């Protein structure tokens, strides 16, 4: 389990993270969301001991990263948005070097991980000949080689094509389901987080504005897409029924509202409803709602 307690960070007196708590449970894929500069990378930097917090502490399986970084990180792997390697070395030599710092890995394990990430054919070529997608696979391989229990992924899908994103998702789900790995995942691609994570934390300008099961939090209320021929006539009816606009023709009805009765009221008011589609709660709506709240 990863536990953040009272974590805060200031850079040159400017607050980058305001104190917050966070828990990532064993075996889950946890999403860390926020705009650029919201504090996601700083949070992950503190977790990995790259950044010293101004206050608070992070524990990985009961070991404090700030007081005992080496032992705390023994079972942790990480990949970053820009996969960086020694360009003049082959993928193979890069893997051997990085895994040697974690105590090494037997040849069979290396072959297994290379197979898992699909780099088999090019592993002995220099990294400067690799595409971005291949570098990201190599990054995943170096993180997985020491058999970590925790995997930290900072924007792993940045720069990947749709096929690459899909493959990455499949690998991450496989790691959780087959190895019981815990993943802390930060991404701008909300649809991706939506498919992978049940629990998320949302950061906005260094402040944690949400932490928990986003679907439960977003579940109070019904979402519906409505299209009117006469929107002016619809407005007072919607207001009376406490219906909130989510933008782009989407509305949030109170939990106990009767959609059929609402449509009838709109029709009676002359709004002329053309379309009414019930909608699933999306992480994007939830995220934007929390950010702008």
């Amino acid at each position, binding site marked *: 389990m990863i536990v953040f307690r009272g974590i805060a960070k200031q*850079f040159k007196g400017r607050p980058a993270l305001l104190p917050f708590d966070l828990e990532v449970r064993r075996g889950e894929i946890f999403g860390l969301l926020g705009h650029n500069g919201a504090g996601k*990378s*700083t949070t992950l*930097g503190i977790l*990995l*001991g*790259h*950044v*010293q917090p101004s206050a608070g502490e992070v524990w990985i399986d009961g070991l404090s990263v700030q007081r005992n*970084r*080496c*032992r705390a*990180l*023994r079972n*942790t*792997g*990480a990949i*970053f*948005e*820009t996969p*960086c*390697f*020694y*360009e*003049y*070395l082959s993928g193979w*030599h890069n893997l051997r*070097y*990085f895994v*040697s*710092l*974690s*105590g090494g890995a037997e040849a069979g394990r290396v072959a297994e991980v290379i197979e898992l990430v699909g780099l088999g054919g090019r592993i002995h070529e220099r990294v400067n000949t690799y595409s971005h997608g291949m570098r990201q696979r190599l990054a995943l391989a*170096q*993180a997985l080689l020491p058999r970590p229990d925790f995997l*930290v992924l*900072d924007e792993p899908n940045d720069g990947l094509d749709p096929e690459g994103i899909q493959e990455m998702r499949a690998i991450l789900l496989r790691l959780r389901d087959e190895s019981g790995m815990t993943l802390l995942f930060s991404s701008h691609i909300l649809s991706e987080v939506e498919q992978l994570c049940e629990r998320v934390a949302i950061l906005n300008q260094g402040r944690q504005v949400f932490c928990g099961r986003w679907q439960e939090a977003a579940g109070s209320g019904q979402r519906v897409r409505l299209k009117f021929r006469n929107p002016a006539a619809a407005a007072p009816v919607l207001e009376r029924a406490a219906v909130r606009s989510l933008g782009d023709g989407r509305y949030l009805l109170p939990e106990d509202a009767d959609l059929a009765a609402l449509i009838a009221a709109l029709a009676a008011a002359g709004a002329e409803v053309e379309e009414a589609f019930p909608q699933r709660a999306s992480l994007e709506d939830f995220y934007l709602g929390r950010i702008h709240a």
Partner: protein
Amino acid sequence: MSALLTLTRGELFKLFARKRTYLGFAAFLGLEILLLWVLQLEPVRKNLERTIEQAGYGANDYLSGLTLALLILMWTTFLLGALYLALVGGDIFGKEVEDGTLRLILCRPVERYQIVLAKAIACGVYTAALIAFISLSALATGLLRQGMGGLFVFAPLEGVFALHDAGPGLARYLLAIPLIGLSLLPVSCLALFLSCLRIKPAAATVLALSFFFVDNILRNIPYLESLKPFFLTTRMSSWVQVFQYRIPWELLMENNLWLAGINVTLILAAIAIVENRDFKS
């Protein structure tokens, strides 16, 4: 301890896997061949012969491969040697920060001080390898061109004027190699220290070189003669004293302890910086 060994092995592997590392070796070989050719030019040769004969010795006995090798060494190691050592030292930490590979290393269960120590050891190994290569290749090219003979040493700035027979001359030459290595270690250590600061690797290299060049310029200003012992390059030049008829071991020991103190201070300062620095994308 085993983490430090693993890190050091990794550092050496990375260092010697880069083509750029060999730039210094290739440059020195080219320069040695060029200098040998220049030293064979009639006017240059005549000047050397005159200097030896004025001291009352035969030019044929002392204008040997050994003498040519030492001349090459004295003219090149400080300027060009420092340049390549500063290049490698300035890159060794800063380039990893710039390229983002340091963050991957920091995800591993290794201590920050161990990373700096491993890099310092790698710098030391590179310094030793470069100086050994320069010295031995200068000796080989000198001997191939001129053959074995006595050693003529003339270093007016350091107050050394000596002539040695072939055997003792060769022994002194070989003894000078580790001393040159020790005297140039502060260049590598200063470049490593600067590369741990929040500056570009190229800036670390330029700053390190500038420091030594300025120190050397000031040392050679006649009005600052009384301050000479306080300049770092004075201490760094003491290796030439090994060619005195009676080797001043105490002076060599004192200067090398002084340089070792500077090296240790720079490495400890580098560790302190890295231990307290935030590494973010």
